């Protein structure tokens, strides 16, 4: 789950990380008031779950409240990578000498948390890591002892930070690690962490992504979800316990299992079509789940055909078929459906579906081929 910059900054601030505190505004008028309250030059920043805000024109400097109002009216409503900006953060403009990067992520290969830092701050860190790997320094945290003070100092020394500034840098790095662990984050990042003109450290941009699997033990953080940013269909799927990712194609998919869902999408592409979504209904394939999945898929206006691919496994094929039929009675489906059903008692399941007038096929290849053809003839 993504957090907004202002939400991450508020959490970092609670951990004693010096953040550039600002005020959130939803209208140009509110932005002007925020600038009046802060006084002096301000920066107006789009609050949206999309990268590349700066390049898209979503971050603007303003010399006075009138300029802040004008900047906000340009940024609010702007589309950045397909997301509409609904909020801006108005924060004091800070003069600085140097920009650093500081981030905490999971290193999957090492199965450890890694703290990364770079003196090339303020730019895309993945690009820096690709083009100048030596510019990024790393320390792996011990799984039981955590990220130690000497490791934080070592990062600072390797970046050539002057001795009088090392202690402050190390404290921020350790606190950022602590935030990461305490919140079950999958990313905690300050980019840039700047050295201001008066030689103090300040986090100018804060970013946090949370591990969805950790949210059950952080109800306060789960409440920070910005439902306005969610695709309405993805939101409905999440509430129904269905894994769903909306894509651009025309063949809607309903599959059980994540790996099989991806393989089904790939098969659609292989036969010349484009999947409209990733959708994993999970185990069991109950009528309720299937109905929710059908509702979500048919709500996408791009969908021209639907491919249902169920590997019944332990769940009996006739039970799955009954679930499908119940769901199909409940949901008004106006595009062709191709069903592929395998598992225990698949013959009985097939008969039930065929008697109700549905096309049932044996292999997922055949199902994909038919669903693609059906989508194209619509």
């Amino acid at each position, binding site marked *: 789950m993504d957090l907004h910059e202002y939400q991450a900054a508020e959490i970092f601030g609670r951990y004693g990380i010096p953040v550039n505190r600002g005020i959130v505004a939803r209208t140009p008028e509110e932005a002007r008031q925020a600038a009046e309250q802060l006084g002096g030059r301000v920066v107006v920043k789009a609050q949206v779950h999309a990268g590349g805000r700066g390049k898209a024109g979503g971050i603007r400097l303003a010399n006075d409240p009138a300029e802040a109002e004008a900047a906000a009216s340009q940024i609010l409503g702007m589309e950045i990578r397909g997301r509409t900006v609904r909020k801006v953060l108005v924060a004091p403009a800070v003069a600085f000498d140097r920009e650093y990067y500081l981030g905490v992520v999971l290193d*999957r290969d090492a199965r450890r948390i890694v703290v990364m830092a770079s003196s090339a701050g303020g730019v895309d860190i993945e690009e820096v890591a690709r083009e100048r790997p030596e510019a990024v320094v790393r320390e792996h945290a011990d799984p039981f002892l955590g990220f130690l003070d000497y490791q934080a100092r070592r990062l600072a020394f390797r970046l050539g930070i002057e001795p009088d500034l090392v202690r402050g840098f190390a404290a921020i790095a350790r606190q950022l690690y602590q935030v990461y662990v305490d919140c079950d984050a*999958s990313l905690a990042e300050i980019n840039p962490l700047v050295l201001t003109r008066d030689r103090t450290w300040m986090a100018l941009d804060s970013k946090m992504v949370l*591990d969805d699997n950790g949210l*059950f033990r952080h109800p306060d953080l789960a409440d920070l979800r910005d439902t306005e940013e969610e695709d309405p269909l993805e939101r409905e799927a999440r509430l129904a316990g269905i894994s769903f990712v909306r894509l651009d194609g025309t063949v809607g998919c309903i599959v059980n299992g994540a790996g099989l869902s991806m393989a089904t999408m790939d098969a659609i*592409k292989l036969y010349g079509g484009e999947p409209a979504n990733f959708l994993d209904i999970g185990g069991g394939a109950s009528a309720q789940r299937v109905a929710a999945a059908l509702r979500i898929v048919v709500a996408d206006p791009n969908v021209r055909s639907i491919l249902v691919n169920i*590997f019944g496994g332990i769940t009996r094929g006739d039970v799955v078929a009954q679930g499908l039929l119940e769901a199909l009675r409940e949901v008004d489906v106006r595009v062709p459906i191709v069903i592929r059903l395998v598992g*225990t008692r698949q013959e009985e399941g097939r008969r039930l579906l065929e008697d109700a007038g549905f096309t049932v096929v044996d292999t997922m290849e055949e199902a994909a081929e038919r669903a693609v053809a059906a989508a194209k003839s619509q």
Partner: protein
Amino acid sequence: MAILVDESTRLLVQGITGREGSFHTQQMIEYGTRVVAGVTPGAGGREVHGVPVFDTVAEAVAATQPNVSFVAVPAPFAPDAILEAADAGIPLIVCITEGIPVLEMVRVYHAVRARGVRLLGPNCPGLISPGKAKVGIMPGFIHTPGPVGIVSRSGTLTYEVVWALTRAGIGQSTAVGIGGDPVIGTSFVDVLEMFQHDPETQAIVLIGEIGGADEEAAAEYIRRSVTKPVVGFIAGRTAPPGRRMGHAGAIISGGRGTAAEKIAAFEAAGVPVAERPAQVAELVRQVLERR
């Protein structure tokens, strides 16, 4: 022979009184797995499908000497259950639980390794040595004994491939689901090494997906150390970057972990990669005939 589980498996089920635990205990017994004990704290003294239930793993171990534990405990309690089994000295722990916070697994991974115990999963379907033992949630009937070892990050996609092999008359030595989470106890490389040393396994199928670099590590290991033929399949060629595709570990991040990279790594290691799950069976037939 097979790997990890066979006729000598004595299984403990943690969470045996739960809906999943009870259902799969019955399924595993029906397949022929010897389930010797169950554990649910507070349910000691009961029986589930004729299996005695204990309050603690240590008691179950003392009374019934299990050598594998199957953990079917909800995510908030699963890390503790894994560590309880590890501390009781059970050498193989299979955890099917989905939704464990990844930072919890970082600690569990290192703690389990320090105790010299093997963890399979979490978020995996378990494993099966057809005709010998099933320690997992896969449908037993789709499998048949034979020479092909299977290792996969996925559940139903593995069933798909197994079904294609069985229908083509090609049996399996052991099918191992390593799990779809970012941090898992047993990697592709660990299982490849076991298959390489298993005399019954003559060919290996590796089913990967987008996210992480375990497939790349597997390709490198195959190039250096595996002499048996390997056939690959990678799911997620059409997956968009930055989106989690169901499995917590199935995400392309920072431009890394794409299907294209993984397929290229396999091809560079001389591993043919199927375009469709059913094609795996054709490729396996070819490599077996060549031997």
